[in-house]
């Protein structure tokens, strides 16, 4: 039976009935990373230094050394990333259950509101309204907050002001609710973090990190192309690097979308 499903899936991929959408930004040195107060530890930005390029360092081959923080570019947050998830089993990227790396996604389009207000916050009421239009959010599915923030770049993307970053995200209550009442597998955003830019002032601070990781759930951030996903029905493949005791990693996030005409 399973062979049949995968066979059909292969056929659908080949025919284009299932489209693969890349939700990943290119890892590059100038992509913004989270900024902490300078006296605290900082995430290393993405850096690439050449080992050789068909030259004296290696006459027939091209390769590079890379360095970056775990939370650089489009990246995955494991439960161990936050103190609330530090004592959970299977809380690091190397112990992440492989089955959790493939899950359906609900995409809540808040792009209009985020365009109006950089500090837009997703609330329970917004999600309930979305559920009325689409369906109840299934347990173990991703919830992606679409803001079209990924279409910005550079300073507009980071949007750092004198009082910190101003980027949209979820409020505290909706994160508690999504985790406790809907049992989501994780929450994904187009901004630098799963939390809003000003979420340090929320209660609890950084509620997406607090509730998601405290319940053994995951985060995805710096996603792109969410505007190419349907509100429901996309299947997301998010497999972080298998880093020993790692708290997260850059990764390639793919969404499988069934074309409307073939549904």
């Amino acid at each position, binding site marked *: 039976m399973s062979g049949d499903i995968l066979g059909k899936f292969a056929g659908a991929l080949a025919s284009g009935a299932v489209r693969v959408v890349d939700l990943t930004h290119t890892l590059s*040195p*100038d992509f913004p990373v989270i900024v902490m107060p*300078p006296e605290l530890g900082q995430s290393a930005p993405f*850096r690439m230094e050449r080992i050789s390029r068909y030259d004296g360092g290696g006459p027939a081959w091209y390769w590079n050394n890379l360095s970056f923080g775990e939370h650089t570019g489009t990246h995955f947050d494991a439960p161990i990333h936050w103190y609330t998830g530090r004592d959970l089993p299977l809380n690091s990227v190397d112990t992440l259950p492989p089955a959790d790396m493939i899950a359906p996604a609900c995409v809540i389009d808040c792009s209009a509101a985020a365009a109006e207000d950089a500090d837009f916050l997703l609330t329970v009421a917004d999600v309930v309204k979305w559920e009325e239009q689409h369906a109840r959010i299934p347990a173990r599915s991703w919830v992606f907050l679409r803001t079209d923030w990924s279409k910005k770049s*550079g300073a507009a993307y*980071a949007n*750092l*002001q004198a009082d910190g970053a101003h980027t949209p995200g979820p409020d505290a209550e909706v994160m508690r609710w999504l985790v406790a009442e809907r049992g989501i597998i994780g929450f994904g955003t187009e901004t630098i973090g799963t939390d809003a830019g000003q979420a340090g002032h929320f209660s609890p601070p950084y509620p997406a990190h607090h509730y998601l990781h405290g319940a053994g759930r995951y985060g995805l951030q710096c996603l792109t192309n969410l505007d190419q996903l349907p509100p429901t029905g996309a299947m997301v493949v998010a497999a972080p690097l298998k880093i020993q005791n790692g708290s997260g990693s850059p990764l390639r996030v793919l969404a499988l979308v069934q074309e409307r005409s073939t549904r």
Partner: protein
Amino acid sequence: MTGPFLKPKRKNPLARTTQPLLPPQARSRKAHGLTLAASVGRFMLQCCGECGRYTYPSREACPNCLSSDLTFKNAPTGGSLLSETRIEVTSDPYFREHMPWRTGLVQLDCGPIAIVHLHGGCGGPGSRLKLSLQLDRAGQAVFFAKPVSETPHMEDDPQWREMTADPKHRRVLITDGRSPLALPLARALGKAGASKIFIGVTDRWKPFGQQASLEAIEGVEIVDLDPTSEHSVQELAMDIGVKVEILINTADHVRPAHLFDVGAAKIAREAIDHTVVGLMRLAQAFGPVMRSRGADGAAGAVAWVNVLSVHGLSNAPQFGVHSAAHAACLSLSQWLRTELRPGGIRVINAFTGPLDTEWFQTVPPPKVAPKAVADAVLDGLKRGLEDIYVGDVAKDIEARLYDNPKAVEREAGQ
């Protein structure tokens, strides 16, 4: 008299770039006492501890009393011109490029007679002169004589320009625009007539408060530059490497850490990446092209300035990581000096004490204002120095290291 040094015309792209040549370099080990003096802008000659007479050329024993007690001491800078020679033809390859060249025989007020390079504003035999020791394009000490009082366009004398690194009509790259040094440096360079001031800025997506003030200065162009990224440094060099005649490296990374702190090694690695390895990346990208342009017209490539912590000379435990990183920068800078010398490019190290900036907030005065560093760097470029000590702390450490380095080390943590 000296005419004004006008902005050089754009060069003919079909003409070969003149390759750098150096003046004669042979010196005795003793004569490097003059090099030491010239590098810091002092006028020092050997002086006999027995009979008190100054002597030149440098020697092992006093020609007057045969005492071997000859040490380099500050000497009076006055002299009188005995005779003047305007050299029209020479077989020396370097000087052939610079004909005619004025030299003179000078009776120094302190006794010896010396052959000197003569500023165009100096009068004929009998005229009074002010002497200095300068580092020529080969980095070797030579005597230079100027008129006692200011003459029009004195700084523009072509022979003097060969002994200095005047920013006038030159294009400068300041590597870190986020440094508190960038704004006073850019202002001072603009005032000194730099034709272009490129200012590198990291992470343009982060707010950059100084941008408007910098861009208000004529000739400033903000460019992307992150010395921690090989890619970024090389891309900028591809764009403007051939246009940089003076490079001022202001990149720094001050983060306090105790040697035994968990994570101190990470802080050290970050500091070294920003400073030492950053300097190396800059050297790899900009060094070769600058070295090749040392004789590229009257405003060719001329100097590379590193702003270093004086604690690179002797560790300050409160800023141990920073001191260690800057000690490594100093070593690298000496290496860079050797590599750039064939191009006649001067490497200047400006050693400063703690700056009056956020990272030295808790350090008691005296601290160095960023403008003081900028003024000292400009002074160093215009006078052709090689080592500059800025502020009381740096000057004090320099003097004490000369006297007793062990005492400086022992007293550092107290």
